[in-house]
Every structure is written in structure tokens, then in C-alpha cells.
């Protein structure tokens, strides 16, 4: 979707609030939200559907909500749509259940779980890739309803295949709870192709793009 989340190249934002040091969480609730995201199970919540739930926030909310609040709203909407909770229960703040809790995890348990979160999104595919490293490609010109990962600023542009990653789980289908393999490429664009002559001649911007976002040049 051509949503407000598609921020690349948008103008009018002010200076960056630079921070050099590492501080995991500025607020207590940020840490809680991070921890909840690692543990709260929703059987339908793929990473892509989660991202799309964030994108579906109204633009005014999307631009003004803190990052972890957006996570909370996405989880809550997702749990509602999976019929785990109702909106009335969420607004009330209780589902009036006292289900048995899973055992408390220790720090050591969690550090193991954290390692186990590592997974590749690469999938086997029997379909031959349409492009190879060095090929010149064009990106699609039009947007698409629903979740999709071709940024607006990279539409209708010419780029070059920098590398092929085999097939990866296709985000557009992942957001519908499906796992579909599709070839994924890193495509490099000259900054001038993207922004015109205001950009440096030698700079580039690259992104991972699925095969169906690309057409032969």
C-alpha cells in the first residue's frame, strides 16, 4: 500500500535527534513491549502480517505514536483479528481469565531462547531465477494493495542486480499468513537515478527486492 510508512525520500522532516550511547529502553513500558513481542503467541502473526498491522495505523497515528506503542497496537489488532481477544476486553484491559501461566523463564533460559530466534527466510525453490548478478532491471511503476516491500521512491526506476539470495519468503504473501518462495535480489540504484541531479554522482542506494517487483530492462 502507498502508506505513510513508506517514508523514503519524503521531505519536510527536521534534524535527526542524534544519540551516540546505547540505552536499550528509555521507558519501562518499552522494555515490557519488547519482552511481550518475544513471548506473546498469536498463531497467525507472521513478521509480514505484523508489519502490515503497523502500516494499517491511521497516518496521523503512525507519524505521532512512539515506536513501541505502534508495536502494542499492532499486536492488539492482530490478536483481535485472530479472535484471541475482543476489542471490548482490550479497552477494559482484562479478559477475565486466570489461565495457568507458563513456567517462569530465567535469564539463562531467555538467552537460549534469544539465540534460537535466529532463522533464515531463505526457502527452497524449484523455479529458476529470472535475473543474474549484473543484469539491468526496471522496477514496477504502480503500487499494490496490502503489504508490499517495493518502496515508493524505487518505483519506475532502473537498477542493477548486485546479488541474488536464492528464494526468500515473499513478504506480500507472508502478510496473508502464507509462505511462498520467490527469488530475492539486492538491487543497486545510482542516487541520481532515484533523485535526479541534486544527488552525488557516485552514491548509491540498494534494497532487497523480490523478483515480481522487477521487469527486464
Amino acid at each position: 500500500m502507498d502508506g505513510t510508512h513508506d517514508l523514503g525520500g519524503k521531505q519536510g522532516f527536521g534534524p535527526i535527534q542524534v544519540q551516540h550511547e546505547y540505552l536499550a529502553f528509555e521507558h519501562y513500558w518499552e522494555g515490557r513491549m519488547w519482552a511481550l513481542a518475544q513471548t506473546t503467541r498469536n498463531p497467525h502473526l507472521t513478521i509480514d502480517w505484523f508489519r502490515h498491522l503497523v502500516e494499517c495505523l491511521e497516518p496521523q497515528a503512525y507519524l505521532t505514536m512512539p515506536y513501541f506503542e505502534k508495536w502494542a497496537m499492532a499486536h492488539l489488532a492482530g490478536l483481535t483479528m485472530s479472535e484471541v481477544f475482543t476489542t471490548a476486553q482490550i479497552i477494559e484491559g482484562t479478559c477475565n481469565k486466570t489461565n495457568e501461566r507458563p513456567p517462569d523463564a530465567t535469564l539463562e533460559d531467555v538467552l537460549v531462547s534469544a539465540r534460537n530466534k535466529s532463522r533464515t527466510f531463505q526457502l527452497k525453490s524449484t523455479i529458476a531465477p529470472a535475473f543474474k548478478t549484473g543484469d539491468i532491471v526496471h522496477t514496477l511503476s504502480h503500487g499494490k494493495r496490502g503489504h508490499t516491500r517495493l518502496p515508493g521512491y524505487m518505483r519506475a526506476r532502473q537498477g542493477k542486480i548486485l546479488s541474488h539470495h536464492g528464494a526468500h519468503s515473499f513478504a506480500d504473501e507472508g502478510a496473508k499468513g502464507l509462505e511462498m518462495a520467490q527469488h530475492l535480489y539486492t538491487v543497486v540504484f545510482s542516487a541520481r537515478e532515484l533523485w535526479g541531479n541534486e544527488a552525488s554522482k557516485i552514491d548509491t542506494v540498494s534494497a532487497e527486492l523480490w523478483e515480481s517487483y522487477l521487469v527486464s530492462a
Partner: protein
Amino acid sequence: MANFDSDEAAKIHRHLHAHMPSDPALRIKALESLAVEHGMVSPKTLDAWVEAYSEHIGPKRGALVVAKAWLEPEFKTHLLKDAASAIAVIGYEGHATGDLKAVENSENSHNLVVCTLCSCYPFGLLGISPPWYRSAAYRARVVREPRKVLTEFGVNVPASVAVHVWDSTAELRYLVIPQRPAGTDNWSQEALAAIVTRNSMIGTDRDLSLETV
């Protein structure tokens, strides 16, 4: 029934946003209460996750990886070829590092990472992302005017040095390997890691100082 409808999601969002208390702390508290009541998780487990990412999983891991790459040519080759498996060798694999990609700065090039569509980040290796990385300003500006953004971080990239921006649109996550500064011969891995800033591994820092962060 699963339901992946965008309009329905937007409708639920509008309803919850209008009717929940506006304080984010209370919204997240509501989610926690529901999750605990439903038996999804215990509060102590949440405490442990917060502790893990506050104290144990963070940019020090990335810095040690960079230092190791500076010291061990074979590790560096492995890291540049397949970063996900290279970091697993030292037990640093984790959240959003399963398709990790390392990109190396040089005298003639500078790498810079962003996720314009959301705020993807290699959490398992660098910890929780900095607020500026998730800000609309960074996401919007860095692909269009990377050099201007860099000056706000105190980094001036000469016009002759190419800036390569990596927009994390799929599940690949990036680790920038900054240049090893001169004057660090014979330094230990720990000493080297101590001068690798978090921002240098995202690309918003370039010339590392010999003073420990």
C-alpha cells in the same frame, strides 16, 4: 478464523486508538495484563527478557565481531561471505540475524543502513535500535540526503568518497564494518571492540577515535 484484511485492521486500529487510554504505558500494560491472564507468559519471564536486552545482548556483541574481523583475516572472509553463520560460530546468532550481511567501509566508500518501510534492525547483534534509527526523519532523509544526515552525526564524508545506503526491505540485516583506525597495532580484541561505536556499525559514525567509548 484468521483474517488478514487491511481495511478490517484499520477499523480495529481506529476503534482501539479512540477508546484506549492515550498513554502508551497504559496501552502496553493492557496488553501485558491480557497476555498474562490468558496464560501466554509470566511477568517474571518478561523481566528476564528485559534484563537480557538491557545487560547482555547489545552493541558490544557487534563490536566484538568487528574487532575479530580486524584481527582474523579468515573470520573476516567468513563474515563478508556469510555473516549469519560467522556470528553463530561465536554464539551471537539471534533475533533478526539469520540473514545477516556485512558490508565493509574503505577509504573510498562509506556504508549506511536504514529501513525506510519500517525499522528493521539486527537486534540480536546490536541490541535495541536507537530512537533516531526508528525516527521518521532518519528513515525519510537518509536515502535522499545521506551526506547531510551524516553531518548531523558529526561525520563529513568527502565528495570523493562514495556513500552506499542499504535499505533493509526484506529480511537481510546489515552490519557495517568500519575501518580499523591507525595506531591500533597489537591491540587486543577487547581493546579494539571498546572503540567500535554502535553508530559506526550502522554507518552514522566513520572515523573511530582511539579513546574508549
